């Protein structure tokens, strides 16, 4: 590992900016009693940040809070608290971490209590659990609610009927609810401006993701990718700050390519790229660093991942379009990764393996998440069949530490790396 000061500087500039953005956002969220700002709680896939900002409202994302608590090793107790309150051990641990957190004072990472939302804005995109999670939150908070039902791409296409349905809900349900709660009149030009910012940031974001086609890859598109998606998937899409962040990030990555560097890891630059992987499924958060280390210490870099597409699939061409402001929001929601059918997901994975010259597909199957997980074994078979590259399957969970078995995961990964080696030797001896 190279941990020289140059690396620290490169790492720090975009990471520090993001850190400041997040801290400021939490300060804003926990300071609404003084500022009078209103809060909308919403989910990451299909979030309507550009629209919410038109009403001077703040976005609070329960999944992000659960992730934060997971990374700070606090979620285990929260999950168990929710189970004690009668929530089943079988259901998504994001939901239980969120509910458990409420019973423990709902503290933001800055240590201040998170105020109750003024509006629950449910974007029901790509996951059925959201709908019931949202009802559970309503049950707790009893506040104003608005629901945006985004139909699933069952046939792998967005029909006009689906798009019209979403547009209509945006116009007749979501916008009036936002106006009512915020007391601010909707201004479409303000929305256009935010969307313009989104598209700018999206261009740079896609450039960063695609930089992994280089050899060595200058980024890790899964573990590192989690940081790169931060602003664009959360409360910053559509802001000047997000545009600035992605410009900065892009410059850093350009620099890494020029210098022939691999990705940055918590222990400095990764030196020797030995395995290039595509990963499907969200990461585990409770042991994130330990999990990542199992990859970089063996020279494995993730060159493409589907988790970095849950809050929007931009690398297939979609950009928020200021000229069609409401329709573009509908298209965005409809196109999020888990709202796509299995064939589309398999196609994406197959293309990633080929386009990023990967050694194979690794699936991190998450116990909590049927939306991702149901069907993944078939997806792996299909991708193996179509690409001729070996696949591997590991099982962990999001924010419940009871389901992360480091020894099992490590064993699986090591056998997978050996399998890739054997495959390479097989190809060499055949040639």
């Amino acid at each position, binding site marked *: 590992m190279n941990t020289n000061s140059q690396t620290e500087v490169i790492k720090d500039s975009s990471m520090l900016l993001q850190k400041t953005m997040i801290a400021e956002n939490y300060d804003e969220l926990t300071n609404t009693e003084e500022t009078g700002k209103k809060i909308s709680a919403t989910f990451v896939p299909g979030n309507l940040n550009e629209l919410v900002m038109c009403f001077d409202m703040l976005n609070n994302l329960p999944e992000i809070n659960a992730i934060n608590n997971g990374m700070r090793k606090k979620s285990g107790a929260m999950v168990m608290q929710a189970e004690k*309150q*009668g*929530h*089943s051990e*079988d*259901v*998504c641990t994001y*939901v239980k971490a969120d509910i458990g957190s409420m019973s423990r004072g709902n503290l933001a990472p800055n240590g201040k209590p998170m105020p109750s939302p003024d509006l629950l804005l449910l974007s*029901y995109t790509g*996951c*059925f*659990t959201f*709908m*019931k*999670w949202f*009802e*559970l939150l*309503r*049950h707790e908070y*009893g506040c104003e*609610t608005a*629901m945006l*039902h985004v*139909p*699933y791409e*069952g*046939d792998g296409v967005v*029909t006009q*009927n*689906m798009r*019209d*349905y979403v547009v*209509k*809900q945006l116009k*007749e*349900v979501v916008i009036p609810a936002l106006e009512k709660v915020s007391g601010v009149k909707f201004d479409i030009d303000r929305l256009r401006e935010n969307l313009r910012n989104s598209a700018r940031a999206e261009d740079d974001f896609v450039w960063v993701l695609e930089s992994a086609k280089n050899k060595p890859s200058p980024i890790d598109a899964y573990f590192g990718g989690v940081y790169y998606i931060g602003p664009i998937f959360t409360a910053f899409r559509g802001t000047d700050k997000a545009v600035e962040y992605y410009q900065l990030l892009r410059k850093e990555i350009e620099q890494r390519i020029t210098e022939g560097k691999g990705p940055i890891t918590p222990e400095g630059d990764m030196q020797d790229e030995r395995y290039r992987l595509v990963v499907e499924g969200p990461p585990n958060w409770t042991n994130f660093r330990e999990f990542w280390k199992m990859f970089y210490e063996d020279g494995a870099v993730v060159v493409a991942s589907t988790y970095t597409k849950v809050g929007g699939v931009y690398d297939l061409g979609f950009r928020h379009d200021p000229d069609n402001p409401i329709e573009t929001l509908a298209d965005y929601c409809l196109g999020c990764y888990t709202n796509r*059918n*299995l*064939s589309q*997901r*398999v196609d994406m994975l197959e293309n990633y393996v080929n386009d990023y010259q990967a050694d194979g597909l690794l699936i991190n*199957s998450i*116990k909590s998440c*049927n*939306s991702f*997980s*149901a*069907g*993944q*074994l*078939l997806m792996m078979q*299909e991708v193996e069949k179509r690409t001729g590259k070996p696949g591997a399957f590991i*099982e962990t969970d999001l924010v419940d530490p009871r389901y992360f078995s480091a020894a099992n995961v490590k064993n699986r990964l090591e056998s997978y790396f050996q399998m890739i080696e054997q495959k390479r030797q097989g190809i060499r001896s055949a040639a």
Partner: protein
Amino acid sequence: MSTAEITARCKSLYDDLDFTSARAWKNADPERKVIGYMPVYVPREIIHAAGMLPLGILGGGDQMEVIHGDAYYQSYICRIPRSTIELGLTKKLDFVDGMLFPSICDVIRNLSGMWQLMFPDSYVRYFDVPQNYDDNIGGKYYIEELRELLSGLEKLGGKPITDAALRESIAVYNENRRLINAVYDFRAEQPSKAPSVEVYLLMRAGMVLPVEEHNELLNDYLAAAAVEERPVRDNCRIVINGAFCEQPPLNLIRSIEMAGCYIVDDDYMLINRWLLDEVSVEGDPLARLADAFLHFSADSAAKYCDRAQDVGQYLLSTVKKTGAEGVIFTAPSFCDPALLERPMLADRMDEHNVPHISFKYAENSGQMQPIREQAGTFADSIKLWS
């Protein structure tokens, strides 16, 4: 026919994982097609109007050994998709021309994609329903979805589906719903005369028989059950909730009754009672089906409840209407919708002092002793304290 004869017929249909009767129906005419559907709701009227047989696929139960299906699912996913895949791979569904996967949860949703990949020659449709109940928004969307389903079936069948045919089918299903509700009402009034296993099997028969035949069977059962004398037990009256998708084994249903609980209402095979009112046969039939779905349909965890105060009201009203003394929440293991909703329903029951217990099952659960004990203790506590 006596209830015993009717039950025996229904049981043989239930046991027959080769779907012999549906195969025979199809073989009687080369033009005929069979459309499979999974829980929780599809508008069978449209399939019927196309001259096709709607066939309910409810997994493999406890009689089928799942060998291939397990290779497709992680241990933390419920059992119905794996036994359904098993049915497909072992060619037990090779006579089925199309499959509908309703919007109920992410597992069935993703199973639709798996089916597309595994059985590419079959007509496969993910059947989405609106979670917005405004006629102008969700209603318009739903009518278009119905139209797409209809034109898919027209294409498959090679002939148009007329409004007149749709109206006739709506009428036949109205009659089916009327008879099914009559059986449920009869059981709620005199549960000793309609044991739950019998009612269950009778309803299951409706998943595989042509609706006209099912209607006859329901009529016969009502007539036979009314005159048959049976011992009355000192049981309490309970409602079952949460079993709307993967089905419990028959033994579980029997065990609950044997443990001292008459089941006076349940949500097994909710499709039979999804539409709560007669669907009008006037005007545009698709619009009438949409009206019924939006404004007169049963509540289940698969639906969004748009007003906080309405959560659990449907269950509460069922408890009141049937004079139930308690609720047994019984959901399949790993069933997200049922298990996520349960705490909200339980709170609503608490608010109204309705006692409740909960447990989980799988379609192949074998050990009934713990369930018998739990249900028995529940029945005793109701009898003692209510």
